[in-house]
């Protein structure tokens, strides 16, 4: 794969990384994803960080090294830094030059960002590794999960639960997610948890997070917000399967 259009030079490891990337992932390298998502999902970073902290507190996790795969603009790590112990070191990785460019403004002595494939990093190991909204973008997510497993003691995943009755009833329901967000795979809670356990992860805890309630998009999103909120008070799982708009946070080892 040639990337002659890139406005910077790449080292040998980056060339290897780009060569190994599948074609559909190029959108993160060639700027297409940035064009579709100009803030690189920063609007949801505080929300994600809040749920990461929630699961950490539920299990009294203490981490001195925190890594994030697909860190994007780095705002999740910045938010976490404000809430965790001062000696904690944060390392964000992304394959996208545009994302890392955005993240650089957030760097400080204990918060670093690198345009790199975490699998190519020698001695990469963390107390806690965050994999938030990443798995659905990876062509071979089974292999990705297998290779991630030894990189950290604790792993926190976030899966968008795209598969719902309302998404399937609309002809464009799933295709819109692919076009707009670059989702290659779609999950129900069961499929997400099964994917982890099948790859040898021990699922310690999980919960639903009401993304569609907290971030309603457009008129339809604002209308759906109320049934999502009311029905999820009875059963979040059923609401996620019926109406969508939920994410799944998972702590796994």
């Amino acid at each position: 794969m040639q990337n002659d259009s890139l406005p910077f030079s790449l080292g040998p490891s980056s060339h290897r990384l780009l060569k190994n990337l599948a074609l559909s992932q190029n959108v993160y390298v060639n700027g297409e994803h940035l064009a579709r998502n100009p803030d690189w999902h920063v609007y949801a970073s505080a929300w994600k960080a809040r749920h990461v902290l929630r699961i950490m507190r539920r299990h009294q996790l203490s981490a001195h090294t925190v890594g994030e795969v697909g860190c994007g603009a780095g705002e999740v790590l910045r938010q976490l830094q404000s809430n965790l112990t001062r000696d904690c070191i944060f390392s964000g990785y992304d394959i996208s030059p545009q994302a890392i460019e955005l993240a650089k403004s957030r760097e400080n002595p204990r918060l670093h960002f690198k345009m790199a494939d975490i699998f190519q990093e020698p001695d990469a190991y963390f107390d806690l590794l965050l994999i938030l909204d990443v798995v659905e973008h990876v062509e071979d997510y089974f292999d990705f999960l297998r290779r991630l497993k030894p990189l950290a003691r604790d792993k926190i995943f976030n899966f968008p639960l795209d598969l719902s009755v309302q998404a399937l009833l609309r002809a464009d329901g799933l295709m819109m997610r692919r076009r707009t967000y670059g989702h290659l795979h779609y999950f129900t809670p069961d499929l997400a948890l099964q994917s982890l356990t099948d790859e040898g992860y021990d699922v310690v805890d999980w919960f639903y997070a009401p993304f569609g309630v907290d971030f309603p998009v457009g008129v339809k999103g604002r209308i759906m917000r109320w049934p999502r909120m009311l029905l999820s008070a009875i059963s979040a799982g059923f609401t996620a399967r019926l109406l969508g708009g939920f994410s799944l946070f998972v702590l796994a080892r």
Partner: protein
Amino acid sequence: MPQNGFVTGEYLEKVPHWHTDDSRWKANCVRQMLQRSGLAPRLIAEVGCGTGEVLRQLQLHMDLQCRFVGYDIAPQAIEMSRTRQNDRLECRLADIRLEANAHFDLLLILDVLEHQENYFSFLRETKSLAAYKLFHTVLDLSAQAVLRKGNLSARRRSTDDLHFFTKETFLQALRGEDYEILDWFYVPRSMHRASGVARKLLQLPRSFCFALNADFAARLLGGYSLFVLAK
């Protein structure tokens, strides 16, 4: 790796007949697609040929000069195919992507994509192996399947399907890898598989809904599969 189940014999334990009972209607659909598009391939290969019964059924109804080559990575499947092989029908224990100079008029890829960990790279690697490619996939993604808790993960356990498709996502998967879609049609798979009058009667609401709006019926109720001819 989940794919190892095909090699270790685990899949044979789950599906002892290796879907051979579906071979006749699948072969009929292949012939239907060929007739619709006016294709008369002389050299036909199948990736993931299983017991080879689809190829045998095709051989029974196609030109005598046609040659058929099946590929499968499962030794158990190839063993079961032995009785079907003849001088113009051969089944090989091999990964077609590793075959030197492999090129065919038509490549059948029936119920294979959903078992591939990386079906994107699989599509890229098989594209150049034949002039025409004919796909079949079960459309497991439906509203009723998603509404029932644990339904899709149970399917993954029982059939080793790693991916689930709607018509839209399947066609997009092909287009995304630069395939040109030439033709496609739905197949009422659950009707084909229903045995007995009572079970066939249960398919009536599905058929009625399908007659009104095929795409919507497939996404709402499931039970359909898709044949796609692509270049």
